Each structure stands twice: as C-alpha cells, then as structure tokens.
C-alpha cells in the first residue's frame, strides 16, 4: 500500500499545543512514556508510537488510531520524560488536531488553533442565535413570563433544526474517524467481525459511564503514586461530576420538554426541576475544580492550557450558571429585566454549546466514545489476527 507522508504534520500539530513550550521534536523515542503509562500496558500504542507517527508524518495512521483517544492525560509520561518533550501535551495537541481534521466545515481547525478564530466563531454563532430569538421576542415589558418573552415553541423549533444540523456534522466527524480506522486496520490485516460490534458498544458505553479506564489512569496503583490529590479532586472524579451533572441536566431538560407543556408553571419540588438543579450544582463543582487547577497550572493534567482548553469549561460554566439563575428567577414575585436577560443569555449560550460541539473540546464525547468502541471491537475475543509469520 502506498503511504502518503505529510512532512508538515509535526509542525501542524504543534500549532494546536498549549503555548510555544511543546517541544516534542526533542523526543528520541526511548519508550519511557509508553512503559510508564498506566493505560498503554496492553497495546504499547501510545504515547511513543503516536509521537513517532507525527515525527515521520504518518497522518493516516495517527488519525486512524483509537489509541490517541484512550489517553486521559494523567501526565505521568510528561513528569518522567527524559527529554522534557511533554508527551501528555503532545497527545492533547494531536487530539485537538484530529478534531480539526474530522470536522468537514474546517471551522474546528480554526477554533482549535487560534483564540481569535475561536472567539470569532463563537461571536458569529451567538449573533445568529440572538438574531433568531430577537426576531420573535415579545418586548412587552418585564412583567411577561419567560416563555412568553421568548416563545417556547420558537426556541423548540430552532433547537430541533440545530440538533439536526449538529447531529449530521457529528455523524460526519464520527464517520471520518471510523472510516480511517476501518481502512487502516483492514490494511494491517486485523479481522473485524460485525457480530462483535454490539458487545463492543456495550463495553465502551459502560466504560465511559463508570470511568473504568479513567480510574486506571489515576496512578494510585503505581509505586510511588503519581497523584496525591484527595479523592474528590482526582481527575476522574472531577470528570465524572462534570459529565454526570451535564447528563442530569440534559435528561431533565429533555423530559421537561416531553412531559410538560412548554412554559407551564411547575412547583419547586417538580422532579425534573430538582434533577436539573442538582445536576447543575454537581457539574459546577467539577467545573470549578477544572478552572481552579487550570489557573494554578501545577497539577496534571491541567499544567498547560491552550485557549481551547479554557474556552469549553468556561462556556459550560456560564451556561450552567445562567441556567440556575433562570430557575431562581422563575420563583421571584415578578419576572424582572434581569430575569429576561439571564434567560436570553442562557438560551443563546446553550445553543452555542450545541452548535460548537463538533468544534470545541466538547467533541471528545464523540471521538473518545467511538475510540472506546473501536478499541473494544478490535480486542473483542472473536477477532482473528492475520499472522505475520504465516505470510513469510
């Protein structure tokens, strides 16, 4: 099979790294990073092989690799790297690069590479959603209930169209990675059986929900322990709170739309309201740890932060905060201008969040999940690997 080598690959990936400090060219492939990694043990797939692929320009191999997304950036490799080549930051930069390559609009590449590009895209989306909302806004004073101020049906209609468009875009991204994986592994002689796929999906989803792999990455079993944070600040716990809280809010919003007429009043003990509020608070806890750690810049995996690393958690935080404020506003004696402003902002930001899913770090929900599926699929018991020795 002919191999196309991209001589600029390493340079392009470096543009996605946090700051100019990523010096992965210093890597001399000693293998320390892979050997020290708590997750690489079963395949030796990363980080060294990923870095090697980038160094020699094997873009197809790099993007086709599910291993790229199996790393949770515990930072052990960076701490012990004899060349200070920062393999963990390389992995993050390569994932950011991959998000750009999987997105067919080209917007993700811009958003992940430059802060200005990211902000411009964000501003453009916000302007579009604001304009759409303003077009049907009821300006009849601050006394109106929230869903009369912005018609609930209109929000719903925009939402449905938005989900359809983003869903298609996400599908394209997922297919882009999946096809690369398929071509590459078939080329390597890995036999993939479709009967094993449902099992792999189940394994991957349960891994994602239970954070089983992420917990292995914790470094606690290692000697000496890699991380000394208390349990409630461990990276996997923090991620679980953000993810769990987000899923709770998503579920609450969806059920609310499905079970209850839009905008109809509900008492404070209404289960969906409580679920959403608790989810929001749990999510905010995790986000506050993430933002604090990024600001401190001392704890792995938060030592280095690119603009994209900041953008997604901040966007999510502001969305959640405005959402919680809306919940409060509903029970104030009379809806105020402040309440209307919060509601407007929340709806625009929530739409931004969805619209930018394939463009920001949010995209990891697609690619990491897919990578877990592909990994489980590839290593399913039914697989038959073509023996290299048999060909000779």
């Amino acid at each position, binding site marked *: 099979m002919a191999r196309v080598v991209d001589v600029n690959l390493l340079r392009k990936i470096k543009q996605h790294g946090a700051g100019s400090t990523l010096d992965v060219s210093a890597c001399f492939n000693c293998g*320390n990073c892979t050997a020290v990694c708590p997750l690489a043990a079963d395949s030796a797939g990363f980080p060294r092989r990923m870095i090697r692929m980038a160094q020699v320009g094997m873009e197809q191999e790099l993007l086709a690799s599910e291993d790229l997304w199996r790393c949770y950036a515990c930072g052990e490799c960076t701490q012990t790297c*004899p060349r200070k080549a920062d393999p963990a930051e390389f992995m993050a930069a390569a994932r950011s690069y991959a998000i750009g390559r999987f997105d067919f609009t080209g917007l993700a590449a811009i958003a992940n590479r430059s802060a200005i590009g990211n902000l411009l895209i964000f501003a453009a989306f916000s302007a579009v959603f604001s304009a759409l909302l303003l077009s049907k806004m009821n300006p009849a004073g601050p006394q109106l209930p929230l869903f009369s101020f912005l018609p609930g049906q209109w929000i719903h209609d925009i939402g449905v169209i938005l989900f359809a468009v983003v869903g298609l875009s996400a599908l394209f991204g997922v297919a882009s990675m999946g096809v690369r994986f398929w071509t590459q592994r078939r080329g390597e002689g890995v036999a993939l059986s479709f009967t094993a796929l449902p099992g792999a999906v189940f394994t991957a989803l349960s891994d994602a929900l239970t954070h089983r792999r992420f917990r292995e990455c914790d470094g606690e079993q290692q000697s000496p322990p890699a991380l000394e944070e208390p349990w409630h600040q461990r990276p996997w716990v923090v991620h679980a709170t953000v993810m769990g809280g987000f899923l709770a809010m998503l579920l609450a919003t969806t059920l609310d739309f499905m079970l209850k007429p839009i905008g109809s009043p509900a008492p404070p003990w209404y289960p969906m309201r409580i679920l959403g509020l608790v989810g929001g608070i749990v999510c905010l806890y995790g986000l506050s740890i993430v933002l604090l750690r990024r600001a401190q810049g001392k704890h792995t995996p938060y030592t280095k932060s690119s603009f994209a690393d900041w953008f997604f958690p901040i966007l999510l935080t502001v969305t959640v905060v405005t959402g919680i404020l809306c919940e409060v506003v509903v029970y104030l004696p009379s809806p105020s201008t402040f309440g209307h402003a919060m509601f407007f902002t929340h709806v625009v930001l929530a739409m931004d969040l969805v619209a930018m899913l394939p463009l920001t770090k949010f995209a990891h929900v697609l690619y990491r999940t897919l990578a877990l599926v592909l990994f489980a699929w590839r290593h399913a018991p039914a697989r038959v690997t073509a023996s290299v020795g048999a060909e000779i």
Partner: protein
Amino acid sequence: MNTQIDSNYRPDALIVGGGIAGLQSALDLADQGLQVLVVERQSSIGGHMIALSKVYPTLDCASCITTPKMSAAAHHPNMQILTNTEVEAIESRDGAHQVRLLQKPTYVNFDKCIGCRLCEYACDTEYPDPFEEGLGAVRAIAVPFTNAIPQKAVLDAGHCGTCGTCARVCPTGAIEFDQQPRHLTIRTDAVIVASGFQLNALTVKPQFNAHRSRNIIAPITLERLLAPHGPYGRVLRPSDGKMPSSIAFVQCAGSRDESIGVPYCSRVCCMYSIKQAMLLSGALPLADITIYYMDIRAFGKGYEQFYQNAKAMGINFVRGKVARIHPVDGGDLAVQVESTENAETPMELRRHDLVVLAQGMIPGWMPADSTPVACASDGFVATPALTAPTATTAPGIFVAGTAAGPKDIVDTIAEAGAAAMQASQYLYQKRSALVAV
C-alpha cells in the same frame, strides 16, 4: 595524620585529588623535577579506579594499573601526599595560589604507624565496609583496604567504642585519641583540579524503587562483587546471597534524563555495563544477562568491537528506557519497559533477580563556591578554551579527568598528562619571566 608538612612547605604544584587523574598529573610533573603536593579527601589515594575489577576494552586488571602508579607516587622523591585532607578554599593573587586545607584527624600518628595492623586485629568493633560498598565489614580502626596507600591505620570516630585496646596493642604508640582537625595553608604556583566524580544516588528516580530492594545495586557494587579480592570472592546478590541467574542492566538510570536534572550523557555507562556483562557471563556462565538501553554509545578506540563481541557472547540488548522497577516476591524484580524493537510483546514485564542501575556521573566537588574556578551549567569545571581543554577560567589552575566532565579512564589519563604539560609550561614561563626581570 601526616604532620610533616606545614605551611613552610612550598610545592611548585598542588594537585586536588589523588585518583587516577591526580596521580598521573602529579607523576608527570614530579618526573620533570618539580615539587608536587597531592591532596586527597579519602584515607587512601587511588580514587574510584582502585576499587574497580577490570577495565574496558582490554579487560586488564584495574588494580594492576593503579597500584604501580599509587606506589610510584608514594615513593617519588619530588612528591608529598596528604590524605584525609580537604581543600577549603583557594585564593589566587598575581598568579600565586594560597590553598587552605583542612586535615581531618585519623587518631593515628602517621610518623609512628608502621602499618603492622595489630590494632586492626585487636579491635572488636566492625561496621559495613565503605570500600566494599557496605557488603563486607571493616574494623573501627583499620588500614582502609589491602592495597591502600599510605599503609597506615585510620580510626573511624563514628564507630569507635574508645575501649583503648588499639592503643594498648600498638607497638609504636601511634594511637592519639586527642588529635584535632588541623588547618593548613599551602602557597603554590600552579594547581591542578582532579577532584573526580561521584555517582548519582540510586534513589534519584523514585520509579526504580531502589530504596525498597537490596537487589537493585550500583555498578560500583557490582565491580566489588566481580573483583577477585571483593567481599565474597564471587557474585552473590545482596539480599539473600543467592547466585543470580538473571541480571538486568538499566542504562541511563541517572543521566540523560531531564526529569532528574542530569540532561548530559555520562559517557562511560554503556561501556562499563558491557564490560560487567562480559565479566558476569564469565563468573556466572548460566546466567541470562540483559542490557536495557536507549542507544549504545561505544565511542572509543576498539569500543564498537567490544560491543559487538558482547552481542556475540549472547548478552541480550533490549532497546527501551526502563520506566519502573517493581520489587516482587522472592526478592526478585520486575522491570517495566517498552521494548521498542519488539512488535510482538513490547510491554512484557520482565523478571530479574538482580538489577544494576547505570548511575550517572555528577561532579565530586564544586570548586566555584570557594575558589576562582568557574563551573559550567552542568556543575563540572568549566573549560572555556577549545584549544586548551585543561585550562580553567583561573590562570594557573588547570583541570584533569572527570572533574571537567564525565569521561573514561583512557581519556582521563590522556587529559591528566595534558594538564601536567600545561601546568609545567605555565610554571616555566612564569619563572623565566621572573629571571628576565
């Protein structure tokens, strides 16, 4: 303690360090008729080399090369040696150097001691022998080791029980319990810094768990195990005295690693590990020997052939930097490494019963704090002039051997000769200038 030398003694050159570099420089200067004083921190001259078993790439006996040089130095009419003595400071003015020395008490009068060892035989206090890297025992008062020079007993105050037996049995009354540290200032025209190296601590990388297993050893410990006059006379592992059947050498365990602050290559580790592997396959013909390496740096004359010979002898070379070493049952060790040239089982945990960490060389003494000699960023003495590699930043002070950077014995001896030549040229020019005036 040698009290013959006092501040009236004015040598032409003072050599800091009595290892192979210092001795070579001193002999080369003394042979030219110059008066030389060698200052050694330890109780015997000979440095690290006298403790080695054999040297690469010829597999010559190390002490067979070192002992004659030590002996020649001890008996040279133009040479004086101060052991147990440290250089506190060097002050240089108008090309002359005032070297402040601190002589530590040995509690034995060297003028009276005849090296008969009656005190050593009578002493009933023993402690782990530092010369044998703690594997054997030594008496609290003893001649430091068999072929030590000077052959004078030294009392270790930290372990002595002051029972007085040694003083009673000494035929010459040499034991002096009341000795005090002695300060001494020597004026000289030239100084050669040959202060050598020390090895990075075994525990410098916590991932290797060296503090949790006695079977993770330093290469200098293996040298003693391999030496014919070593602690056991054969190779046994420290924890239980078992004859090891699978030995791992972990290269770059204390150098070429920015995470421990030693980014430079220690130069000698590849070659000494190959040499030790060869000697081990002679001592333990049935043992499996594996060297884990990043790349083999066989840089000198005949070295590449030496490496190829080792491969042909059946020593395993596995390319990959060891990331962790886990103590496992039975005192054995599991080595965690990515075998980067093995696509089949790259991440297999490999079990060994003895692991040797190739520690890196770090400076033995940092003269920059107390002398006019500047050190480079790696801590070794700076040698800024490319055309005068033994010249330091201070006029009249020269450097030789591993004080200037990691190097092997061959290069050290060559450099020591060069430093001596530079020093004698400096002395000659200085004195002919005086005569001319």
